[in-house]
């Protein structure tokens, strides 16, 4: 029951949390039913916990499938390294977001949290040089992206300005609303 900063331990912890939440929701529902509540009311009263249990169950297998797929993929070592870092980042991100659950239901202790936070920050630093490379690999055509902010050539400001010229308001130097509303309004205030 000692926490280790390893992916085996992390994946196991996700399942411990899921099992803990399922168990907790089931026990609370049973307690309500034993207290005389109808099963439907007991279900409704416990539904916040039930939703959380489902979410934890799903998150556990998303983390597991990510880690498993990466470890089984036959890719080059440099790519394997990046994919492993992404899988670790995904797991740690959700673990730290929900650390209260892990402190309650897994063998994570408060003293271990600092180490996990540091691990996450190190992963961000390691992935930083490859961020553009990873999204380039998605290989999305500029026309599909449809965004001056994300085009392959990075001409963000030129493209944004070009887009602004498409506004129908820019088709004439003075809009008719000036003569109809603004001008009389300005005079009336004089």
């Amino acid at each position, binding site marked *: *029951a000692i926490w280790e900063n390893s992916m085996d331990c992390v994946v196991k912890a996700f*399942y*411990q949390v*899921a*099992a*803990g939440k*399922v*168990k907790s929701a*089931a026990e609370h*529902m049973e307690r309500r039913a034993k207290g005389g509540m109808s099963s439907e009311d007991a279900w409704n009263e416990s*539904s916040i916990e*039930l*939703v959380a*249990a*489902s*979410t934890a*169950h*799903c998150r*556990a*297998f998303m983390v597991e499938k990510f880690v498993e*797929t*990466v470890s089984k*993929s036959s890719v*080059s070592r440099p*790519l394997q390294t*990046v*994919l492993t870092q992404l899988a670790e*980042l*995904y797991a740690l991100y959700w673990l730290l977001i929900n650390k209260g659950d892990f402190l309650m239901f897994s*063998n994570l202790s408060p003293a271990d949290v600092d180490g996990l936070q540091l691990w996450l920050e190190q*992963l*961000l*630093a390691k992935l*930083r040089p*490859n*961020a*553009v*490379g*990873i*999204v*380039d*690999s*998605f*290989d*999305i055509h500029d026309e*599909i992206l*449809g*965004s001056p*902010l*994300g085009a*392959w*050539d*990075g*001409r*963000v400001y030129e493209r*944004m300005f070009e*887009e*602004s010229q*498409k506004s*129908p308001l820019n088709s004439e130097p003075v809009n008719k609303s000036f003569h109809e509303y603004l001008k009389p309004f300005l005079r009336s205030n004089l």
Partner: protein
Amino acid sequence: VNPDLVRERQKCTFNTLELTHLLDGGEAKTLERKEREDYFLSDPAFKDEVPMEYLSHKEQYEHSVRKACHMFKKLQEMPHGSMDNFRQLLGGMLGSAIIKDGNPLALHYVMFLPTLAGQGTVEQQAFWISRAWNLEIIGTYAQTELGHGTFIRGLETTATYDPATQEFVLNSPTLTSYKWWPGGLGHTANYAVVVAQLYTQGKCHGIHPFIVQLRDEETHMPLPGIIIGEIGAKLGMNTTNNGYLGFKQVRIPLENMLMKNNKVLEDGTYVKSPSDKLTYGTMMFVRVVICQDMSSYLSKAVTIATRYSAVRHQSEMKPGAPEPQVLDYRTQQYKLLPSIASVFAMKFSAQWIWEMYNVVNSELDQGDLERLPELHAASCCLKALCTSDAASAVETVRLACGGHGYMKSSNLPSTYGLVTAACTYEGENTVLLLQTARYLMKTWQQARSGQTLTPSVAYLNLYSDWRQPR
């Protein structure tokens, strides 16, 4: 090319093409995708003279119908047609690049045709699918009502069998029973599969699907007794032409009930299918596809935000030093990189559930229903998590682009509109999570009584007596 992006690409430590091939499923698939993209994107008929957002709601719809018709005509003329092409055009990134705010013909292909295939008899399939496939008719799928969404047993529209004329009489007893939401229903479709409570011989037999003609095939005028229109502007997907539909004693022939599973005989006798669970297949397939689409939409959003973050410089990290790339700030990395990781998590989970779907479907064909509840539970919660994660990640990366991400032209607001819609359609997320919870509660009882559990929940046995150490 912007010099910052050149530098970023120079320092990348892996072969980006290798990852592209991995994500596409191989080099051949990458080439196939690129050919498909060139085939559609090079067509000048899909170019907008004026950005769509500057057009009125009505004009946007009219342009989308024009593009959708041209798109499907081109698809039928394609030398190597495949389901991948359909998928990409209907829900995928390519389709949303051509028609940014929703395809008014999508439900004809995504729901109408699969429902005919999944729930029609062989004779019904031969007649209706050929008419639908040849675009003699345009269909949609009308299930949700103003008063009822995911809880389909509560639907109020009635189909009462009249043995004297061998017809069903469709009726909307209340305003809340009006169909509400189906894509293409407003002004595009002339037929719909309508889900209604079946009454025969004075008894209600629950909900069943019926093919109903809505509009005249020549004039497109609504038929007598059909109350139909578009529901109005929404947060996003404004060109999907979502509609409403009411019935005032509309008569349809007996053979218009889809009878692959349950049947009504000429005298009104109701014959129930041995397993009504067989109709769950289409629903689960759609949920698997949604997970794949969420991964695609998110990959688009993170590409926009990451490249922008490499080009954008902001503030002073050290006094007197030049403004660094925003990508160098740890807080910016925390917004972008977990969102990038989510693209992979969704993609790999969708692959896993797709494999499970195929296994369970082949077991179903042999009459083995054992793993159906497990698949149902997994597809429910995975759809819920993928859509809610994608919606919050798109919003996070939009914020990572500051004010520029708020521009419509950034394409992040439209992407958010498409993604957040999926949190609601094909089963509202909280309702789906509660369906998974029902399965988990049953499984928990089985675990406690020492029974063997199916693979995705076997961990409950492992940790059933597990206690946190402190």
